[in-house]
């Protein structure tokens, strides 16, 4: 405590210049308690969140490979993995990041150590196949970083082992005294500076393979380079991202998407390389061209490209219809020409309370839970983008999987909105569910791209998705939406029928969940367990319909106000209802399993009081007869909004 006070007073002048928030994006975060601003309780302070990253003086970041296990045992009984080969693979994975021309991150294996124990905070950056008993992960990349701005002086012991970790004779991090751990140069280091990163791979539960020939569908074996590329992203501060499907034709995602399909060789091959989202964040935090000093790693050498020559940024806020800041959502930029998702960013920059005595963070009142309402998306410049936002709602990624700001949004239950796009000058809480999408020319930093979430709601006769199901080939699934439920959104000026969403997934992570068609149709519930639905003249049709893996795939309706006005009256006059219909067809882009895409269902558990709403139907005769599903409610959703 005493030390902390001293530290805070020493560095307060520096703080003013260095802690200006830059907008939230896609980095791992930690607390910054430097300002020592009192929190809501005695002994607590406010802790704005900051990115963790390596100081430029520690780049190139030296790593040691633990050779305690050599060869690395094979838990499936096959041949063990030679450590030298594994080491080559690990450096290959480092080089995937090192080779980004716009990023000056550089991570190198420089030596071996022999350590029978699991990783620890010891100022040695260790790559190890030794994990503690009960290790719950395939691999992990914990980083220990400063949580207060600090000034290191010669002889300081940072990790508390009695050995100096700072040398005034150094200008870059190095093992100056030859004792195996890394010494830092004397000087100032901001909160968030990584002091020690270790990456552990669990050889007690998994087999790590090398090369294409070893790829298989055994879920307990996976490609070492793929896993290492992901973990080494964390090693230099890059957080998880929500991008798991680049476009309607491309099922791969970002290397920093939280899951790898261990049963899908193609997904593992994809994971060996970086998506533009990965490249953008590594480059944003370690930008080439940041320094004119040839000794600085950010000086542009042959083969490098200055960050600013390639990238620029999109910045703005996301607020709910009532003006509250949306903390921990996922803003994204989508290439308006190719329709590929380019880069995503966490919305707003969070703030937590921090108990100085227990070292514990805690949630602050919502209004105090952010220090910056801006998101910041780094994107390749010279292109046009659609900008949008989706919830980090666990479909496919939850805020607690991304960073601390994501955790705040998740714990506060803020992530319950539908994906939507920025509408340009027309952006408001009642522009439209998803549009009109506005094409944003991005040749320079763009600010003020402020998204206001729609004031809308979803109509669905179902609970949450708790299972996935395959519809029979050529079969139809349908959900009835009574007119009366739509009319409930009419506050006197009419209703927009904005779109519909279908929960979908694909069995293989590298393939997209493609369906033959999705319809907004009309029909009647015959009252005898069947429904008659007019599929010949649907109000809206999207064919094919490409869903989203482990997410609600949207269909956006143009002219939503007209649809509401004209369709609603017409359907009501005829005594009909709307039906949301999905047609399953042959998968045009099957993955390794050859399974068709799947639909999310809510399994009715009568013992738990769940009821069959009788509004979910299936047809297996080409849409002639629709029968009520007895065991499921289908979580199809119609998105509607009052016209205000």
């Amino acid at each position, binding site marked *: 405590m005493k030390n902390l006070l001293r530290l805070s007073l020493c560095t307060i002048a520096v703080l003013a210049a260095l802690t200006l928030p830059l907008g939230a994006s896609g980095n791992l975060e930690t607390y910054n308690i430097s300002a020592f601003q009192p929190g809501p309780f005695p002994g607590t302070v406010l802790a704005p969140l900051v990115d963790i990253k390596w100081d430029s003086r520690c780049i190139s970041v030296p790593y040691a490979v633990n050779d305690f296990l050599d060869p690395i045992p094979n838990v499936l009984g096959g041949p063990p993995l030679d450590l030298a080969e594994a080491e080559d693979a690990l450096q290959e994975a480092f080089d995937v990041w090192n080779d980004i021309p716009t990023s000056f991150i550089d991570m190198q294996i420089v030596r071996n150590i022999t350590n029978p124990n699991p990783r620890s905070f010891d100022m040695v950056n260790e790559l190890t196949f030794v994990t503690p008993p009960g290790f719950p992960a395939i691999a992990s990349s914990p980083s220990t*970083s400063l949580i207060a701005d600090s000034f290191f002086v010669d002889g300081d012991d940072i990790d508390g082992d009695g050995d100096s970790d700072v040398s005034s004779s150094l200008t870059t991090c190095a093992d100056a005294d030859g004792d195996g751990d890394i010494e830092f140069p004397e000087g100032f280091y901001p909160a968030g500076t990584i002091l020690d990163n270790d990456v552990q791979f669990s050889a007690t539960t998994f087999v790590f393979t090398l090369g294409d020939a070893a790829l298989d569908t055994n*879920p307990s074996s996976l490609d070492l380079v793929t896993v290492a590329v*992901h973990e080494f992203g964390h090693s230099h501060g890059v957080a998880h991202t929500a991008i798991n499907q680049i476009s309607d034709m491309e099922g791969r995602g970002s290397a920093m998407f*939280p899951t790898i399909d261990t049963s*899908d060789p193609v997904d593992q091959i994809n994971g060996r390389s970086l998506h533009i989202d990965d490249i953008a964040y590594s480059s944003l935090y370690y930008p080439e061209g940041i320094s004119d000093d040839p000794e600085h790693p950010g000086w542009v050498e042959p083969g490098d490209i200055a960050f600013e020559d390639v990238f620029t940024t999109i910045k703005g806020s996301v607020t709910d219809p009532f003006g509250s800041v949306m903390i921990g959502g996922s803003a994204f930029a989508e290439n308006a020409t190719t329709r590929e998702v380019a880069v995503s960013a966490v919305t707003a920059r969070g703030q937590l309370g921090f108990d100085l005595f227990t070292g514990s963070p805690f949630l602050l009142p919502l209004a105090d839970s952010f220090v910056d309402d801006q998101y910041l998306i780094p994107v390749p410049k010279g292109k046009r983008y659609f900008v949008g936002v989706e919830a980090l709602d666990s479909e496919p990624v939850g805020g607690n999987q991304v960073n601390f700001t994501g955790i705040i949004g998740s714990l506060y239950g803020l992530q319950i909105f539908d994906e939507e796009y920025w509408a340009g000058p027309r952006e408001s809480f009642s522009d439209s569910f998803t549009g009109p999408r506005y094409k944003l020319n991005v040749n320079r930093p763009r600010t003020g791209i402020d998204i206001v979430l729609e004031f809308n709601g979803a109509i669905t006769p179902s609970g949450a998705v708790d299972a996935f199901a395959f519809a029979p080939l050529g079969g139809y699934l349908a959900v009835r939406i009574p007119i009366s439920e739509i009319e409930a959104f009419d506050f006197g000026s009419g209703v927009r029928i904005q779109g519909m969403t279908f929960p979908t997934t694909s069995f293989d992570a590298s393939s997209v969940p493609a369906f033959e068609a999705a319809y907004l149709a009309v029909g009647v519930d015959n009252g005898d367990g069947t429904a008659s639905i007019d599929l010949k003249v649907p109000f809206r049709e999207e064919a094919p319909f490409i869903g989203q893996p482990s997410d609600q795939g949207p269909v956006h309706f143009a002219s939503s106000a007209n649809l509401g006005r004209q369709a609603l009256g017409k359907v009501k006059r005829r005594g009909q209802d709307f039906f949301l219909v999905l047609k399953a067809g042959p998968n045009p882009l099957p993955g390794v399993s050859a399974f068709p895409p799947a639909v999310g269902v809510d399994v009715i558990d009568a013992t738990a009081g769940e009821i069959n709403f009788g509004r979910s139907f299936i047809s297996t005769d080409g849409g002639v007869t629709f029968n009520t599903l007895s065991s499921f409610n289908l979580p199809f959703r119609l998105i509607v909004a009052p016209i205000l």
Partner: protein
Amino acid sequence: MTRNSVKTPLGLLTVALLMAAGASASTLQLTDRQMVDASDLVIVGECLEMKSEWVGRNLMTRYTFKVDEVWAGQAAGLVEVVVPGGADANRKFPVATVWPGAPIFSPNERALLMLDQLPLLYEGAYSVVGFNQGRFTVAIGPLTAAKSSASTSGPALQRRESDVLSKLHARFDDLIAAKGAR
């Protein structure tokens, strides 16, 4: 997903009960059944306090939960849950260790927890099954009187809690019963 799917013909649909879409790069993604089977204890509890501590040269965080409901296993009173990572502000250079994807609870958080007894270092303490997968937040309670508001307390919140718990019961009760029967 292929690893864990349970495909059972049920009427006209074939269902794969909510399964993993693969393995997380950090953790093995578990099915509900695997989570239940891996649990020594399943409770609904409220996080009362938390404390970071050094275990050797690793920062860990110890959370104390008040047990409100026991769905499986045996527990009463308080349960301790230990999670990798934590922070220490009481040292010359304050530090935190961040494990990407590890659970972080908030005081007053009420959650369904699937817990695994920890070996060796933490007698009597538990870890969350599957890193963060065996944690299902039910509600966040008010931290201070000033913060207590319509958005975080009152009938609406109680309804929401009740809804969330009902869904969790529907999701896990049969699996827990099946495990007990084995």
